[in-house]
């Protein structure tokens, strides 16, 4: 079982190395363990996260790609769809049937035809357009809805922090 997961991860790693999406670098943080990846995501242009570099950890289950991986930002994040501990909450990371927040349609769920690349792209679009119905981070959701200016300010502070400035 782990053999096919490894094979698939290697293929995806190769694809992401040779032809990565814009503003994304991802790969195993240490090749001793292929099930722990590190990803760097550049905040999408034209959004309040523009220019920031956000590191995240992706953990794959032994039966990947049947079960989805987990993704967790290792830098401070303030976003409606990211738990305060950094865990990302988007539909593509949930297998059909397990829906922690009860708001997702079954269309964009995890299945073996999805990939790390698609997850990362979904995360980029999540940064650009938060979904305030989810509320993995209730404070962020509330601020995003009620006080956008304050939210943008928080985001820009995170961007500067992420660059070590």
């Amino acid at each position: 079982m782990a053999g096919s997961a490894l094979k698939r991860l290697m293929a995806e790693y190769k694809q992401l190395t040779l032809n990565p999406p814009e503003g994304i670098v991802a790969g195993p943080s240490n090749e001793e363990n292929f099930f722990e990846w590190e990803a760097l995501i550049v905040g999408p242009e034209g959004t309040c996260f523009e220019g920031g570099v956000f590191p995240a950890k992706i953990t794959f289950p032994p039966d990947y790609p049947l079960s989805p991986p987990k993704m967790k930002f290792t830098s401070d994040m303030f976003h409606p769809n990211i738990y305060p501990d950094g865990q990302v909450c988007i539909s593509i990371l949930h297998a059909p049937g397990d829906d922690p927040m009860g708001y997702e349609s079954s269309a964009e769920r995890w299945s073996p035809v999805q990939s790390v690349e698609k997850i990362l792209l979904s995360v980029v679009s999540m940064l650009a357009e938060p979904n305030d119905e989810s509320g993995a981070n209730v404070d962020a959701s509330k601020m995003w809805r009620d006080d956008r200016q304050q939210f943008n300010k928080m985001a820009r502070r995170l961007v500067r922090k992420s660059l070590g400035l």
Partner: protein
Amino acid sequence: MDKPAIEELFDSSRFNGGSSSILLFFYFPLGLVLAILRIFIGVQLFILSCILPKFHAVRSVILRIICCVLGIVVTTDNSENRKKDVRVLVTNHVSPLDHLAVDLVYPSIMPSVWDLPGMLMWMLGYRDMGAKRGRAVLIEKAKEHCEESPIPLLSHPEGATTNGKKGLLKFSTWSFSLDQPVQPIVIVINRPLIGINISTLGSRWWQDVFWFFFSPFTVFHLRVLPAMYKGESEDFEEFTKRVQDTMAPQLHLTTTFYTSADKVEYAKKVLFNPHLKKIDITEMCIVSNSLCNHRHLDRLQSLRHHHHYQHQPIVMLLDRFSVMASQVKEVLPHVPEDVIRKDLEKTSCVDTTISRILEGQVHFVPIDTSPSSGDGEADLLEGATAMPSGTSTPLTPSPSATQFSASHFSRSANERQMSFEERKQALYDTARR
């Protein structure tokens, strides 16, 4: 003028057919002898070009004569337009020898995209400008070169070859941002007497070169256009478009929005599905509706949208199992097609088949997709979905500004790790700027 469809931009077969094919039949033995002779002469030329000082008048004369012997004739037009102080030459791209032809008349160098040994690169007239470390590095190095050296830089902004009969691919902007002004040169390539196409879809550079040697002779006709300056209010994209619009009518071509990436995509489609048929969009929807999973329909539509196929007959697979099999193949390229098909006939669902294969319920012998695999690690590598080996159409550099890709995927874990660290650093460096 009508925008041409993507299939009109490239030749799919080497021979034109028609009346010239009879001529070709009689010419064949002669051509073969000629090709072999010329390969040996070509080696001499190669050595000679290494000995003679580059960018010297005598060298250019001698090389031109030998190239004529090899069947490569270069003629020029409007050469009074060529200004010595213009550092950037841009041309359309019709054959793998374009840079050689231009180099013969107007000595120039080309930034290399391949990982060649330094010596070989120098001999071929390429120079490493760090293209593999991303576009930012390439542009920086190329700019440095333009400032320091009087030798002009040659680039093919199309990024891939076309047949030069219908349209120009979309130009990438990077070569226009290096230095001002830019000298456009249009190349018309002509192979009289026998109808052998210069370059076909998915052909390798050495195959094209062989047919160069095989043919009696091939004429490169270069026409130099006046140098162009970027306007005050123009951005690089508009300037690029203006240069393209100037070059296209000179070639009697239209401009298109297809990019070199579209060519690769198209080549993959055509070359890996030989039983491909053209059908209308309506038919395609029927096919797609019969799929077990509606997500694939969305995918097909987004694919179609991406490739600007909306108003053209779409290239699609006719039979339903082929569509599904190719989807499984995309995810699991190491599984033989017949095994996939057999399982699909049982499950008739893409996702179920993928799961069954991954769970090991289906037995198969993995296909070796990597050309030179030998060690154990190659097994892990072979599943890659990158560019298949059959379509190694050489692409000139047009990396995007924020893409941090590696030039190759190393066999050794250590090297991969290093490249990963480097790319992470590059991303941080770019972001901090």
